[in-house]
């Protein structure tokens, strides 16, 4: 009984003067024994010490959880914003560059001896070389992204191997073409045959793989985004839970001191409690905002940019199918079909029960797309631009989309005109539409530019969201540690005068 002094300092007597020397002495003697038996817990200083220790441990846990979660948040910015995200978009260039290489070859072969037709022989050759260099650069990027994934590395290698073979085949076709010096659109069968071999390799083997590389790397970004997002969200829960536990201990300590020492409030502990509340709330708010920024970057930025880069690559490839359609009349049906399939993947207007052919496509496109107003709920077409339209609210992106759709319709009107000439047996007229008058090439250029502007809008949204995420995290290397340290000091400052009463 005497070893556990029941000091209950009352109001006005809680000074060192009230300490009984005898009590202090007996406590000192009994210390080791009481400690072993856990009886120290029954002493007031022991209880205060326990309270303080629990508070400090909870603050320490809060600091640990905050540090880990802020680290996860930083990782998510790295993944989406700086490393994988932009690189994946860059691999989209691979498909684009490869498919444009083949389109330029078709242009060169089609114009034959008339070197100034269309883009012109020199310009087409220059573009071909440039795309080849771009494809190489994009393949390097893809190889880096592949890292240690053997399947993806193999796909990249297959693309590069195929490209080497493709260039040899193109070389042969070009040589035969030069020897033939034919008039535009009238290729000798051996040139057509040589080109078929090259374009089949490109379209059926190389391009699908290039496309799959972008899809696969995009899938990894999506997966790590999901993982990191869940980690940040789980971290936010842990911050809230540890914060709440720290608050619980602080309030309990406050109440204990108030009862024990008959005081209303301990100012230092009040500050510590408010500090903990503020740190927890601000951190939870920051993490919520962070998840929002990253989500915007991923969905409004990355996903859209990737989708639109696929739309651009496929549009160029379809434009190349027009050349191939003119170049190789024996396969006109096939190239018309691939043109239609690619067009459908860009914009798929609702055609009702009508058969899905190019003629009905052109009609449906005019009807449905002209009637479309940005921001409307029911978008009457599917495809890449349909997906884009469904995501859209009024504003800068909606304007850019409207211009893109207008330009796309112009491209398709030129296509319809060209095919009407072919259907009427006037191949020279068709070649004029596609190559001699600047219209088709100009309109396609305008469409490409509009698509580029639309992509830029999403790129800006992406950059902005990533900047916001980075800004939010700035300073959060020091804040948790400094905050936790300040709170710990306040707790100690609050407990010290009370403990001092027992010395």
């Amino acid at each position, binding site marked *: 009984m005497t070893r556990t002094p*029941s000091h209950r300092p009352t109001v006005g007597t809680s000074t060192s003067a009230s300490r009984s020397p005898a009590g202090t002495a007996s406590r000192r003697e009994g210390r080791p024994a009481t400690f072993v038996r856990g009886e120290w817990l029954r002493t007031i200083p022991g209880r205060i010490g326990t309270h303080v220790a629990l508070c400090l441990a909870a603050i320490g846990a809060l600091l640990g959880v905050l540090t880990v979660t802020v680290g996860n948040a930083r990782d998510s910015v790295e993944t989406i914003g700086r490393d994988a995200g932009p690189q994946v978009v860059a691999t989209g260039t691979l498909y684009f560059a490869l498919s444009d290489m083949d389109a330029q070859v078709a242009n060169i072969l089609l114009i034959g001896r008339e070197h100034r037709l269309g883009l012109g022989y020199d310009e087409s050759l220059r573009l071909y070389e440039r795309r080849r260099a771009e494809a190489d650069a994009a393949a390097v990027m893809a190889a880096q992204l592949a890292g240690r994934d053997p399947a993806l590395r193999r796909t990249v290698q297959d693309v590069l191997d195929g490209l080497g073979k493709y260039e040899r085949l193109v070389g042969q076709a070009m040589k035969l073409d030069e020897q033939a010096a034919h008039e535009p659109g009238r290729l000798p069968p051996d040139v057509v045959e040589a080109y078929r071999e090259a374009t089949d390799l490109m379209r059926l083997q190389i391009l699908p793989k290039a496309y799959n590389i972008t899809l696969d790397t995009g899938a990894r970004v999506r997966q790590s985004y999901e993982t990191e997002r869940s980690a940040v969200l789980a971290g936010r829960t842990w911050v809230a839970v540890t914060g709440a*536990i720290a608050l619980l201990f602080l309030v*309990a300590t406050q109440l*204990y001191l108030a009862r024990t020492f008959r005081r209303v409030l301990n100012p230092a502990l009040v500050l510590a409690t408010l500090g903990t509340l503020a740190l927890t709330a601000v951190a939870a708010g920051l993490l919520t905002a962070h998840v929002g920024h990253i989500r915007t970057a991923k969905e409004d930025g990355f996903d859209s940019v990737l989708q639109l880069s696929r739309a651009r690559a496929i549009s160029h490839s379809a434009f190349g199918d027009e050349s191939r359609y003119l170049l190789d009349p024996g396969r006109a049906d096939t190239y018309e079909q691939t043109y239609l399939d690619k067009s459908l993947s860009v914009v798929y207007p609702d055609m009702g029960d009508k058969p899905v052919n190019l003629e009905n496509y052109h009609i449906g496109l005019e009807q449905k797309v002209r009637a479309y107003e940005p921001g409307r709920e029911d978008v009457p077409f599917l495809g890449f631009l349909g997906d884009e339209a469904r995501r859209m609210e009024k504003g800068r992106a909606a304007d850019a989309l409207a211009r893109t759709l207008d330009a796309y319709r112009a491209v398709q009107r030129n296509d319809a005109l060209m095919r009407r000439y072919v259907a009427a047996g006037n191949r020279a007229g068709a070649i004029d539409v596609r190559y001699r008058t600047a219209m088709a090439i100009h309109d396609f250029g305008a469409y490409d530019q509009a698509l580029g502007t639309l992509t830029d809008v999403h790129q800006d949204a992406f950059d902005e969201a990533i900047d916001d995420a980075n800004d939010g995290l700035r300073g959060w290397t020091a804040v948790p540690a400094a905050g936790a340290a300040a709170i710990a000091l306040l707790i100690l400052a609050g407990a010290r005068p009370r403990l001092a009463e027992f010395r």
Partner: protein
Amino acid sequence: MRATSRATSRAGAGAGVRAAAAVVVAAAGLTACGLGGSEEESMAGKDSLVIGVKEDQPALGVKRPDGTYEGFDVDVAVYIAGKLGIPRSRLTFRTTNSSVREDALASGTVDMIVATYSITAGRKTKVTFAGPYYVAHQDTFVRADATAINDVRDLKGKRICEVTGSNSWRRVIEERKVAATPVTVNTYGACMDALAAGRLDAVSTDDLILAGFAAGRPGRMINAPFTDEKYGVGLKKGDLKGCEEVNRAITAMYQDGTAGRLLLKWFGGSGLKLTTSVPQFEGCN
């Protein structure tokens, strides 16, 4: 005296605990809605799979008298499941006809469909498609002596098979605008009989389906493909993880030579030009 002190301090702590517990519950409630729900349960994480296949397509999906299934689609499904870590013993095959495919996936009666299921923009709004695992093309099968038919336009004025419920004849007559005469027959098997008997001049549909029905029959595949039919693996809408995993399995199937082997095994004898390079995937969404 001590007892009172303890009691009060307990009561005080009790109030604190309750208050703090309320904060914890509130905080957990706030964050709970943000957690989970981001990704639905994926077929990629299952221990066993129910796979929808056809039961009446020779060489693609056929139900044998003993109730088991065989065909190219079945082998592809087994390979994909194997790559997802599910052995054949834990696979259940179920006949899934064309009309019920979307519902079967949505309701979860099947986890995955591998059944000459063409990817189209309309279906993509209801189904998540992995693959395609093969791009089939509409082609035409004629009698061996019909040397004048070499592409789809040569079908002008010819009698072609119109199978109830199939759109293939429309692709010739309506989409390609070739003035052929459709002759209604119930099944592709019956078309082949009618062709041999001279009641028809040509059967035109997906080349793999033709190759399956044509096996062991005299006749000629004209090898003039004129559409792309992207055979996809149907998954429940939104199962992106499953879709990505299946795409990786399909890539592996082509890289390790299995796809080429399976195509040869089931269609090698048909005279059909087969593509053994991985198709361009549709993308998971």
